[in-house]
């Protein structure tokens, strides 16, 4: 057995992951402020550097932010949920259907959509905890199932629109100075922060992520805690679906397609280990901000710099960012392992594996 090499501590002392990420975020912001802001013919500042644009970024990051918050405890337990984006779409569609086709009031339809989210999350939870199936393949199945149901319900064509202004207020207006949905996002972030960092639940998520068997022997109700994180994720995905619908004023079957990638990227970028056990909600929030600034900033750049495709470019860069963040997270360990193996090879010259 190879014993874990002693971690080099000077790096972790000098820079916390969140600290580095904050620097990256500031650098990113300054870059886009410099290249993405311009003054139009009437002498008005347009582009990235305006206050409105900052509110826009906040508004646009709420849905992916909510999914990322939902994924943080899951990834802390070394799990994964690929179905959050599909569940967002299904809940958005069902909300529209409850309201439009069944004549429910908006609050009732919203409650219905949240209930569906809860059920969707529970389906994942039951399959993962009762049958002990791997989260990856379970949520891959529900990823397909939820999206498929949304498509089947709408025949791939129906779009629900014409929501009342009182509902659109949630997604398109401001309340006390900030975009309305930002308050929801901050509230969920605060609750999630409390749950993960200030309660024994959060501690048990980490413990399960480090070692599920060890947690079981320590007397933690591992199955119940795991079920909890997936159910919460379902509920939060439904909430994100409502906000998505309110922001765009329409519910379509393809709502939230690919959001799971951005959410997972935000979480991993935020320093939560994909192997479980390590991570923070603050990190996730910074990760969400970094992705949102990238996405919006690219759209503000002159066409030459974004190669005529801000959406595609931001998707591509987000994927690349995820790889860099992952590689960055293992590189110190990899290097120290390599150094340790070289060191042991040198101290024991008789071993033949000194390549």
């Amino acid at each position, binding site marked *: 057995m190879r014993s874990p090499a002693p971690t080099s501590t000077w790096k972790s002392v000098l820079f916390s992951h969140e600290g580095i990420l904050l620097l990256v975020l500031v650098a990113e912001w300054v870059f886009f402020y410099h290249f993405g802001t311009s003054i139009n013919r009437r002498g008005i500042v347009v582009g990235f550097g305006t206050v409105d644009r900052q509110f826009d970024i906040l508004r646009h990051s709420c849905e992916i932010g909510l999914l990322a918050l939902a994924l943080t405890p899951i990834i802390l337990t070394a799990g*994964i949920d690929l179905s959050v984006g599909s569940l967002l779409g299904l809940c958005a569609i069902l909300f529209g259907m409850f309201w439009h086709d069944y004549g429910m009031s908006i609050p009732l339809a919203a409650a219905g959509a949240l209930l569906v989210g809860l059920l969707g999350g529970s389906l994942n939870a039951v*399959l993962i905890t009762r*049958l*002990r*199936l*791997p989260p*990856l*393949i*379970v949520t*891959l*199945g*529900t*990823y*397909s*199932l*939820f*999206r*498929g*149901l949304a*498509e*089947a319900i*709408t*025949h*791939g064509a129906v779009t629900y629109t014409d929501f009342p202004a009182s509902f659109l207020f949630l997604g398109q207006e401001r309340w006390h100075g900030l975009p309305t949905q930002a308050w929801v996002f901050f509230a969920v972030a605060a609750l999630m922060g409390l749950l993960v960092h200030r309660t024994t639940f959060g501690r048990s998520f980490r413990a399960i992520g480090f070692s599920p068997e060890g947690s079981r022997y320590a007397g933690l109700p591992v199955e119940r805690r795991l079920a909890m994180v997936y159910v919460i994720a379902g509920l939060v995905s439904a909430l994100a679906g409502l906000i998505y619908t309110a922001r765009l004023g329409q519910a379509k079957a393809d709502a939230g397609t*690919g959001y799971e*990638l951005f959410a*997972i*990227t935000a979480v*991993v970028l935020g320093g939560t280990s*994909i*192997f479980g056990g390590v991570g923070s909600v603050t990190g996730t929030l910074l990760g969400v901000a970094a992705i949102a600034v990238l996405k919006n900033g690219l759209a503000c750049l002159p066409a030459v710099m974004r*190669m*005529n*495709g801000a*959406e*595609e*470019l*931001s*998707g*591509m860069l*987000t*994927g*690349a960012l*995820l*790889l860099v963040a*992952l*590689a960055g997270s*293992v*590189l110190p360990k*990899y290097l120290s392992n390599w150094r340790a193996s070289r060191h042991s090879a040198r101290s024991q010259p008789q071993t033949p594996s000194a390549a």
Partner: protein
Amino acid sequence: MNRYFRELSVAGALALLLAMLAIVAPAFYQPQPLLSLATREAPTLVVACGMTLVIICREIDISVGSQFSVCSVGAGLLAAHGWPPALVALAALFFGAVLGAFNGFLVAVLRLPSIVVTLATMVSLRQGLNLLQQGEFVNLPDSLQWFGLPQSDGQWTLVASALVLLAVFAVALRHLAAGRFVYAVGSDTEAARLAGVSPQGVKFSVFVLMGVLTGLAATMNIIQSPQVQPLSGSGLELKVIAAVVVGGVAISGGRGSVWGMFVGLLLLACVSPALTHLHIEAYWEKAIQGTIILLAVVGDGLRGRKGGG
């Protein structure tokens, strides 16, 4: 319980579906549409062979759909520049090998989790392709179609070569040392290492092979039509993983066979035409595929609990 119980139960489900179709919709059994179906699914089968290996060694690759698109468009562009068909095919394999090696490097050398790595490469490749190609189709020269064969000969050749590949993989996985290494690494990495197998080497090779097979599948796809759609491979990963999982290959590694995957693929491939013949809207396809995946893993979970394996 019988060693092949899992494969046989899927085969039973397939037989049931086929029998039902024979009674309700005999129109399903016409040679020409069936040949077309087989030709359409031949590239999927090739990718699924690679995916079987990837999953047996306890990894996953969800970037195959994007790899498929990149290889198709890349090879298509070369063909449009007048490269001869043989070189175009080789180039597609080469593109696949490079993309597979990239994934393999990140997974095997840097030891990153394959699900996240390939999620990232899936999106980066897809969006990069969209950025460069802007959704434009690539027009192919006539010489590339069916490699110059008449259409039905070309279709038969395609299906036959996919089946030969399947048989080769079945034999190699079962009887070659390299095939046994894949199982060894998937069932217990540490034991495999102690037995002298390099798990990282095996994983890297499997990812490269996955890429090469995806390139081959892309070639088999572009010779079927006069144009390459940049979106041609989207959703392929899900279809292929579904076939592998339904066919009884354990996602936890070390267990399963190419034959199981083949039966799973046949079952899933018959769903879409079955829907048409049973007059069910095609929009249900994704939901039904998701349900089949869940049913298959639930079945495995229940059996695993009872049998303790």
